[in-house]
């Protein structure tokens, strides 16, 4: 078994890798965690993590700039149902399109648009930067054993955009930031987190551990 963290020149791969390695160790899993820009390694991996920070269009361009990577991801995740975790903009890329700056096509794995968060309270700052609890809409194996809801653990968010206009059965968890913010999505063998599990202490590490053990 192996985990591939897709390297396309975006963001903090080191933390994601170390978090996966630590949780593999804690859960007693013998799982090499590979940071890779090689489409064949992604194709061969048993699990795939797609991180991403920065602007949607830049991340999409970065991913498209690695020859064969989008094809390899699509084949592994949509074709062969490999468990997939998208983090932050890595999750946003799963959507149909991003509306940040210009309209940019996403991977189209889930319906919806990546649009600006619009808190009803104008005093709330953007970017949304900080810790929020999760309101979970249904059970999911990656959330097993994690206290959620208003009295639950917090997840760390850093973003100005989120998934909107998607299908109800795609949204797995929301956060309250003066309006409903899409915090997690799930469909088939895919999960995505708008927050950073690799920076969310206990909640995030538990989620990563659950993802490594998830057998959809």
């Amino acid at each position, binding site marked *: 078994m192996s985990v591939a963290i897709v390297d396309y020149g975006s963001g903090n791969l080191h933390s994601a890798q170390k978090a996966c390695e630590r949780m593999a160790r804690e859960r007693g899993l013998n799982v090499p965690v590979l940071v890779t820009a090689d489409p064949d390694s992604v194709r061969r991996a048993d699990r795939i993590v797609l991180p991403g920070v920065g602007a949607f269009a830049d991340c999409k361009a970065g991913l498209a700039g690695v020859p064969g990577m989008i094809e390899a991801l699509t084949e592994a995740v949509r074709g062969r149902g490999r468990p997939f975790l998208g983090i932050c903009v890595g999750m946003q890329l799963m959507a149909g399109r991003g509306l940040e700056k210009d309209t940019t096509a996403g991977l189209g794995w889930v319906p919806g648009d990546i649009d600006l968060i619009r808190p009803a309270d104008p005093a709330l*700052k953007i970017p949304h930067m900080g810790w*929020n609890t999760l309101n979970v809409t249904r059970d999911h194996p990656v959330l097993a054993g994690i206290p959620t809801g208003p009295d639950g653990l917090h997840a760390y968010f850093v973003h*100005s955009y989120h998934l909107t206009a998607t299908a109800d059965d795609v949204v797995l968890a929301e956060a309250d930031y003066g309006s409903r913010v899409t915090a997690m999505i799930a469909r088939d063998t895919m999960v995505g987190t708008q927050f950073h599990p690799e920076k969310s202490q206990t909640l995030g590490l538990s989620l990563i551990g659950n993802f490594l053990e998830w057998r959809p």
Partner: protein
Amino acid sequence: MTFKVRIIPCLDVKDGRVVKGVQFVDLIDAGDPVEAAKAYDAAGADELTFLDITASSDDRRTMFDVVTRTAEACFMPLTVGGGVRTVEDIRALLVSGADKVSINTAAVNDRAFVGRAADKFGNQCIVVAIDAKRVSAAGEADRWEIFTHGGRKPTGIDAVAYAREVVGLGAGEILLTSMDRDGTKSGFDLALTRAVADAVPVPVIASGGVGTLDHFVDGVAQGGATGVLAASVFHFGTFTIGEVKRHMQAAGLPIRMDGITG
């Protein structure tokens, strides 16, 4: 609640060692920034900030190593500042495991650097650190000016106007330090904090002057900060993260209590 106030301990790091050391817990090596970071992680801090005060730019690699080792051990947000002058400096820190990079003097000298950095890495990871001093006389309207070189060198730049400008260029957060209050334990400069917080749409972190538990509350309730940063009161064990959080929560502020025990 829609947002939680962030409590942020700051570690001054010189040549890979914590200046003065961290004395609030029995660390094997009180001068190791990674040991200190792990202790704050366990104590329930919401973020960590490292400020590299290494004099020579030749020794920057030491800081990259500290950031790398911290990111391997602490799965929480980390901001790194001090001596950040180029897009390459920012990239090296982000690749090492920093989530945000704070820019100070380089932004004062070249405002466009903020824009280049934000375009390259996204607004969310670009913090502009502002060191400000009150320059208005008693009876005059409040006015603060940016100072560099540890508060010794005036620039003539208005702090509030500068905050607006760098946010317009792409800064995603302002780390605001009152050089009048820094080290005095007399509380944040609340008028300064409020003026900047009201002027910009991005989060403002208040810094400089915390001496009592109420000062933390005031920075948010009166100053309008979304986070509060402190160094010595934490390092010397005057207050634990838990004490600060419990006090702020009791004062009615929204606080993340994950990992706070006892």
